[in-house]
């Protein structure tokens, strides 16, 4: 070999291309084309019904202007931000880590049982879990009201953001827990041992031994759950189309596109959302690159 051309497997360029093609084709058809289509729709006044469904007109950036000046859009974006901070960054991360941390120290049967139930929350189909929580939050015969003795409280309407934040924390904690369990497993026990011998308490161990080891895991986890939570649709199943005080971006797009029927406007908002997603991803990747030795 004269020089390293990166062709470790020795496939040769044509065969490598042949291998990659099917995957690229699928990505093209199901990801790239729809994205282009969305980009195009966002420039039109396309609607689900009415004249604009049959003869859509190009309106260029009107949809974007409408979105950015619309208080409903800004409201949804703000609520989504709160939702991400509340349910992903604080709720899932913190609960996930705490569970992982505590479970390290308990006996195996208890650990298995707890893990089973936490995972169950994550695995149950979202239509089922939202139905369960609908029953839990119900105003008249709800479990929560029965437990707390708060007869007649309509949680989803009187505490809309808290309701969906708690719900989504419950759903998503399992992922953070799993990720942190394996991260904590990678911390060398010898270092923890020496820290303990040197008289470090649990706080100091966390700060000086564990965090430096799992920093990149924290970043990865935060990136993933931020993106998921930013895009999540499930709370809509819980709140329905009319509960505007709990309306986050995915629900707002669904309502705008399919319930109100403004497909063009909905496409424009979707694109704004993709851009925000990309920004979040880029910021995290940057941070990740800087921190990793």
């Amino acid at each position, binding site marked *: 070999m004269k020089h390293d051309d990166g062709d470790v497997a020795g496939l040769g360029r044509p065969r490598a291309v042949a291998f990659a093609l099917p995957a690229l084709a699928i990505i093209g058809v199901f990801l790239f084309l729809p994205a282009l289509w969305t980009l195009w729709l966002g420039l039109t006044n396309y609607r689900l019904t*009415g004249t604009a*469904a049959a003869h859509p007109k190009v309106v260029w950036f009107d949809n974007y202007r409408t979105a950015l000046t619309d208080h409903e859009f800004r409201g949804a974006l703000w609520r989504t931000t709160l939702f991400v901070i509340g349910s992903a960054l604080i709720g899932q991360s913190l609960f996930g880590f705490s569970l992982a941390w505590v479970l390290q120290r308990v006996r195996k049967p208890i650990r298995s049982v707890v893990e089973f139930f936490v995972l169950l929350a994550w695995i149950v189909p979202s239509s089922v879990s939202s139905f369960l929580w609908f029953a839990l939050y119900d105003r008249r015969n709800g479990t929560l009201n029965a437990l707390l003795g708060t007869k007649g409280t309509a949680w989803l309407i009187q505490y809309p953001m808290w309701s969906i934040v708690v719900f989504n924390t419950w759903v998503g904690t399992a992922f953070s827990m799993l990720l942190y369990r394996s991260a904590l497993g990678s911390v060398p026990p010898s270092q923890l041992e020496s820290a303990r011998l040197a008289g470090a308490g649990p706080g100091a161990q966390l700060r000086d031994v564990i965090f430096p080891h799992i920093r990149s895991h924290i970043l990865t986890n935060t990136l993933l759950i931020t993106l998921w939570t930013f895009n999540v649709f499930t709370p809509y199943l819980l709140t329905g189309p*009319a509960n*505007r005080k709990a309306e986050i971006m995915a629900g707002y797009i669904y309502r705008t596109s399919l319930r109100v029927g403004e497909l063009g406007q909905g496409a424009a908002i979707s694109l704004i959302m993709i851009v925000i997603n990309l920004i979040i991803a880029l910021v995290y990747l940057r941070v990740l690159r800087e921190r990793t030795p």
Partner: protein
Amino acid sequence: MLTATAALVAVAAGSASATTPGTSAGTAAGGTAAAPSGEAITISVTTNAISGGKNSAEADFFQNYVIPEFQKAEAAKGKNVTLQYQPNGVDDENYKTKQALDLKSGAGADLIGIDGIWYGEFADAGYIKPLDDIVGADTVKAWSGWAQIQPAVQALTSYNGKLYGIPAGTDGRVIYFNKDIFAKAGLPADWQPKSWDEILAAAKTIKEKVSDVIPLQWNAGSSMGEATTMQGVLPLLAGAGGQVFADGKWLGASQALKDVLGFYATVYGSDKLGDPILQQEAQGRDQSFEQFSKGQIAMLAEGDYFWRSVIEPKAGDFPMANRDTVVGWAKIPAMKPGSGIKGQDFVSMSGGGGYVINPNSKHAQEAWDLMTFLAEPDTIKALLNGAARITARDDVNSEVLSKDPFLSFVAKDVLPITAYRPAFAIYPQVSVALQEATDDILTGKSVDDAAKAYQDKVVQLAGADKVATSG
């Protein structure tokens, strides 16, 4: 005009025989040749009904009566047709989205039941086509039933002067009240308010004298969708002398609209006569049905659908065994006597739906057969199954309505004063803006802010020159 009172004007009943569905098949001018005799054909029909759920009786009627009888009727014509019923059991807005997506993608049932206000936007989108284009003008004209359907009722399934389907019926809106609760509060059993103030006064009396009862539930909020506009906003608006569309312009933030929103603010805000949270619940309308049927709501403004389908003693969604003795009804008063549209003292709103043939249907002729079959007196009477309902046909109405004191009241006293929604494609969007204005009131915004937000939305929808702006 409908003042002819669809129901009671004696039209030569009996002159329409039950069987003459159009021309004999085979020469449809619209280019859809009927299938040759004997060839197996399957067609489907869909409405928003499901056995054991929403509009259960209607779904059962399709399964148990329409399918066998229609197949028999087609067989008599030498056709081998299998009919399938596709049930739905969701709120009307979701049903509409589903039908629009089906029609858009070239799918969907052959015959589709839709609401009268959707014809415009579906037609503009090219999703549905005039009957003349689908089965041929001669075939359409030859159907004997048209003579029995008033022009105002035919308008429910028409758009821009063209018929898109056969209407299934019309309706009217009233205030229902629970006579037991009224008796406890010392209010009369033959209560009939003459102004909004009298409604509010009755509600206040109930609030003072009867505990654990919601005095008045007046549809509001976008959770209830079109029901909010139809049962809630529009009758009030008509009572304040306003119309959602008049003289070529859409309603803006007029005084009439502010009066309407002011009424809501009194009911749900300052005086707590109604439950604002119920109006925002995802299943709020069903909840209001259930609570009225259990005697927990004293007054509820609803359409006659509520009487015949919801609290119907046997087959209703929330049956009330003592409906006929406990439930009273009253006309919806104008804000003040004479302040209603056309100087009326009392007002109502009417709507209704019908069927439409899917333009993608491969068996349009059979779908037309089915549409006319559904509109024949025998079929309608089978659907009613001894009960009454304001049907689209004069001959059937004059026969059945006298059986039910409430529905003959609607036909005699309500339909002459009623009004219809404008048949424009953007009406449903204006309607959503009205619903959102009531949302604003439910969540505590001021009347002026809600009216202003509404006007901004309508200007965005229709253009400033098409809105009667003010404020």
